[in-house]
Every structure is written in C-alpha cells, then in structure tokens.
C-alpha cells in the first residue's frame, strides 16, 4: 500500500476505479433512501447495458461521441488547459457535418471523410478562439469556452432555422453517401442504431496517443502542461502550443458532433438546451485519467450508463436521473483524489 502511494502511475489507475466504485455505492445509498431496491436497480442497469445484442449496440453507439468528447477534454488537460467548451465545439461540428452531408454530392468514399473533416475544422476553429485569447490576452479559457458554448447553442439553432430547416424543429437529412449508419452493424446487433463512428473514435484515440507519446509536438504540449515557465525557458513557444492544443481539442469535439450528425441522427435538431455530451466528456476524461485508452473504457461505461438508464426506470422503477447523479458523484470523487489518497494512507497505517 505504501508503495502504491509513492507510485504515481499506479495511483492514477487506482483513483478512477475507486471513484467509480464509490460513486456506485453512494448511488445505491440514494436509491435506498429514496425507497428503491438498489439490487434491482443495478441489475436492471446491467441488463440495460449487456442484456441483449441491441443493448450492447446502443451502448457502443452512445460511446462514440462520449469517447471523442473525452479525448477533447483529455487532450487539453494534458497541456494544462480546461476545455469546458466541448459542448459548443460539438454543436458547430455537428452542424458542419450535417451541412456538408446535405449540400454536397459525392461518392461515399469521399463524402464521409469530407463531412467528418468539415466537423473537425469547424470544431477546431471554435476551439481555437479560446486558445488564441488565452495565448494573446491571458484570458482564462474556462470562462471563454463557457460563453462560447451559449453562442454556439443559439447560433447553430438560428442557422438551422434560417437555412437548413426541414420543419418540425429539424434540419434537412444528410445524403445517403455521407451516412455512417450501417445495415450490417445494425443487423449484427438486432436493429440497434450502431454505426461506423466507433471506428473513428478509436482511430482518434490512437492518433491522440501517437501525437502525445511519439512526437516532439506532443512532448512540447505536455511540457507546457507540466510547467509553462520552464517550457518557455527551454525555448518552447508556449503561445503556439496553447493555440494548437485547443484547436486539436476542438477538432476532437467537432468529430464527436459528426457522430451525431452523420451517425445517430442523420440531421440536426434545433436545440434549446445542451446535449450534455460535452459535460459528460469531462467525466469521461477524468475517469479515463486523460489516457486515450482509459478514455475509451470510460466512454463505453458512460455510454452504457446513459443508454441503460431508461431500462432501469422501466424494470426497477428507479428514475433514470440516478445515472446522472452517479456520474456527477464519480467526478467529485476523481477530483477529490486527495480524499482517496488520505483514505488509503489511513488504511495502510492501520494495516501495519
């Protein structure tokens, strides 16, 4: 145990696992207090995640935007930046992908990559703004990204209403050639909405890993995250790295939007409130310890929790909002890793 506390790498894995367990535990207590049966609740939740091929398909479908949102948050975290603007970047990416998917006529081999690229560029530009303002004017990126979320929410809704409106609060549908949906995957999972987007999510995770671990740029990004002044002293261009990090982060978020636009929905709704994916992305990144592969696992878990929530409501009568509570609690516990360190130290002392 003492060794564990000294070994930061191991501790980084222990914290998320511990937090997830604690989150579930407190969730169970809340169920008990509310007069629900926690065992029935969790077994229904488990059923909803793994009970049938369709449930598994839906879990993976919901995971793809979450993984990408998590990558976006995690990538910025690595450079010491907090991107709360994933939600907004996701929305502009969603809109860009739907526009390209609807307006252009191309063969599928070109159309899909172009639409995803459009989403990445739109999200990247939207993420670049706070990066630029941070580098140039030293404005805190948290506030700017929050404000830009609302600008994105209202502006995308207005643009759809003005230029892409198909009626019934929805935009036009994208062309068949831009669609990520797949009859094969859908049949394989008994008619879920699973689409090829998950491949894009995994590919992006690999790209993030490669960029951060195997390139000079990645080394610089991380160095800036560890110690901005030392990096500057070592001759790195801190401003450039901040802008670059936020742009890439925004691009990941934009692609998350493309998952919704080209995959799950094939259009975009005139939203009056946020999707929540961007905020869940913060939870995913924290739980995944900002590691691309950890983020994939965390994304699948949260995707499953979200898609299984209705089943929990249906089978065990537990309000589906419990899932949101559990996710929030997990964030608290991961963020309060000091508490977990404290607890573990206490335990290890008693063990001696």
């Amino acid at each position, binding site marked *: 145990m003492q060794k564990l506390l000294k070994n930061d790498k191991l501790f980084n894995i222990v914290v998320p696992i511990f937090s997830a367990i604690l989150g579930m535990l407190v969730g169970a207590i809340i169920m008990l207090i509310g007069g629900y049966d926690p065992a029935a609740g969790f077994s229904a939740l488990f059923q909803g995640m793994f009970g049938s091929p369709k449930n598994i398909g839906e879990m993976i479908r919901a995971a793809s935007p979450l993984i990408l949102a998590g990558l976006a948050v995690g990538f910025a975290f690595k450079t010491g930046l907090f991107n709360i603007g994933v939600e907004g970047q996701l929305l502009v990416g969603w809109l860009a992908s739907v526009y390209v998917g609807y307006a252009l006529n191309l063969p599928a081999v070109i159309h899909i990559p172009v639409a995803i690229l459009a989403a990445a560029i739109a999200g990247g530009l939207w993420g670049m703004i706070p990066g630029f303002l941070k580098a140039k004017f030293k404005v805190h990126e948290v506030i700017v990204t929050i*404000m830009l979320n609302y600008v994105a929410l209202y502006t995308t809704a207005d643009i759809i209403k003005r230029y892409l409106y198909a009626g019934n609060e929805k935009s036009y549908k994208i062309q068949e050639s831009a669609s990520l949906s797949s009859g094969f995957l859908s049949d394989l999972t008994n008619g879920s909405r699973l689409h090829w987007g998950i491949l894009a999510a995994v590919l992006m995770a690999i790209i993030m890993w490669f960029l951060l671990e195997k390139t000079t740029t990645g080394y610089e990004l991380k160095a800036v995250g560890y110690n901005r002044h030392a990096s500057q002293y070592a001759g790195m261009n801190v401003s450039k790295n901040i802008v670059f990090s936020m742009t890439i982060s925004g691009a990941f978020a934009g692609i998350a939007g493309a998952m919704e636009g080209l995959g799950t929905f094939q259009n975009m709704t005139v939203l009056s409130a946020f999707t929540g994916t961007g905020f869940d992305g913060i939870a995913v990144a924290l739980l995944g310890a900002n590691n691309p592969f950890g983020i994939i696992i965390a994304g699948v878990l949260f995707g499953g929790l979200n898609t299984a929530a209705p089943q929990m409501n249906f089978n065990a009568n537990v309000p589906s*909002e419990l899932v949101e509570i559990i996710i929030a609690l997990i964030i608290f516990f991961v963020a309060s890793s000091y*508490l977990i360190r404290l607890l573990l130290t206490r335990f290890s002392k008693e063990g001696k």
Partner: protein
Amino acid sequence: MSFLDILVIIIPATLYTAAPLIFTALGGVMSERSGVVNIGLEGLMLFGAFAGVVTTLTLQDSVGAAAPWIAIVVAAIASGIFSLVHAVASITFRADQTVSGVAINMLAAGLTLFLIRRIYNKGQTDFVDYRINKQDVPFLSDIPVIGDIFFSRIPYTSYIAIFVAILVWYIIFKTPFGLRLRSVGEHPMAADTMGINVNRMRYIGVVLSGVFAGIGGSVYALSISGNFTGHTIAGQGFLALAAMIFGKWHPIGALGAALFFGFATSLSITGAQIPLLQNIPSVFLIIAPYVLTILALTGFVGRADAPKASGIPYVKGHR
C-alpha cells in the same frame, strides 16, 4: 411610438428579468472574492428553483400568498447547504474547483429531477397558485412618468435585489468581514499569517454563494417560470457568472452587468414591439451578453481581472 412608451416597456421588463441574475451574480462575487471559483452557480440556482417551487406547492394551501416568500427563504437555506458539497470538495479535499463546479451542475440536474419524480411521480411540477407577481408600488406608481417607468408592473424582488447589491458592496468593502473575505481571495498566505482562518472564510464565501444563488433560482422559478422542470434554469446561472465577470468581481459592477444582461434578454422578447429593433434578428440580442463578456475579458471593454488566488486551493506552508 414615443421614446417614453419604449422606456415604459423596456425598463420594467429589464428589472423583471434581471432580479434572479443580480442575486446569483452577487453569490458569485462572494465565492470568487474568497478565492473559490464557482462554475456551479447554475446548479445552485437550479437547486434553489427546485426548493422554491416544492416549498410553495407544499405550503400554498395553508399560508396562501405568503408561500412564495417563505419558499425563497427555504430555497436560500437549501442551496446554502447544497453548496457545502462544492465547499468540501474544493476547499477541504483540494479538488479542482472548476471540475467540482461542473459536478455540482450535473449533480443538481440529476438530483432535483430524481426528487421531483420521487415526490410527484412525474417529470415536472404543477404550476404554483401564488407567484411573486408584478405589481405597482403604492403611491410611487402614481408619480407621473417616473411612476410608469420605474414603479409599475415590477415584482418587489427586483427592488430587493438592487438593495441587496448595495448591501453586499457595503459588507465586502466597508466591514472587517469583507476585508478578510477579500484578503483570503487575494493572498491567503498573508491572511493566514495575520491569524485569519483561510479555509473557514472560504467556506463562508461558498455557502453565501449557495444562499444567493438559491434566492436567485427561486425568484426565477416563482416570478418567471411558475413551475419546475429540468429546463427551468437553462443558462441563467452561467449568465450570472458572466455578469459577475463583466462587473469585474464588484457587487455594484455585477448589479450593473446583470441589469444590462436582463435588458438584453428582455429585448429579445419585447424587441418585436419596438420599431427599431424589429429588424435585428433576435439571436444577436441573445448572444450579446456572452460575446460582451468575452470582449470584457480580452480588455476591449475595460480589463477584468479575477481575485489573485481564485481557483487555487490553500495548503498551509506551501509557497
């Protein structure tokens, strides 16, 4: 339509929409002045709206029109207690304050709806019978011109909000307590050396932000929306956060900014009645507060700087 007629429409509407923002922004000032970033204002407001509506629905049969006023007090206490979660995580356990704030927002959204379903077996509450109504102030509303503009069809909460802003300014800048609160937000180590309990002051700052945001949320629910759904508070907390920043972390500045944002929001609703504004797409008015806040931060609209130690947990003995 004369200029005066326009004022008669705009000013009451501004005061009406701004009141919840003023309260919540003042809460933000309290917390950030003590050195704790509070992104959770939105969630605290939501919790206040929830507590306010549930209390009103429970009490309205027995106490009638007094119910919403009691509900505001209950909401203030409830949100104050709820904000302890943020305080414990970010002060005692040294969690990243932004992360903790995000978690507060998610927790509030989940918990309130969970409880609503538990209590009422449906996803939203009924409308309350007694709201905090827009009313004419006796005597003052009879004054020609001014009475119509400033004292007619405005809920009392708006005047209370303005009064409280002045009170908060007095407390923060003119009392020993205020000096201590500001000192732990600017230079906690110096404050500690002078014998001020940094963490205790920060706890007070965060809980006060919960109290004010709770008032703001319940005022919004009881004067504007009238019931509680998951979307009752949709961005008002972040708008209040923006108002606090645009007001440069100063109570009176926050008051002014909240009034201005209330003005912008009300314009997007009442704008259709006003000749000049009919042609401006309402989306520009809706996004104006957010864009202006960004511009304020970049220094285009006067530089805004946060309290120096805002966002940094205080660890005794660390340099």
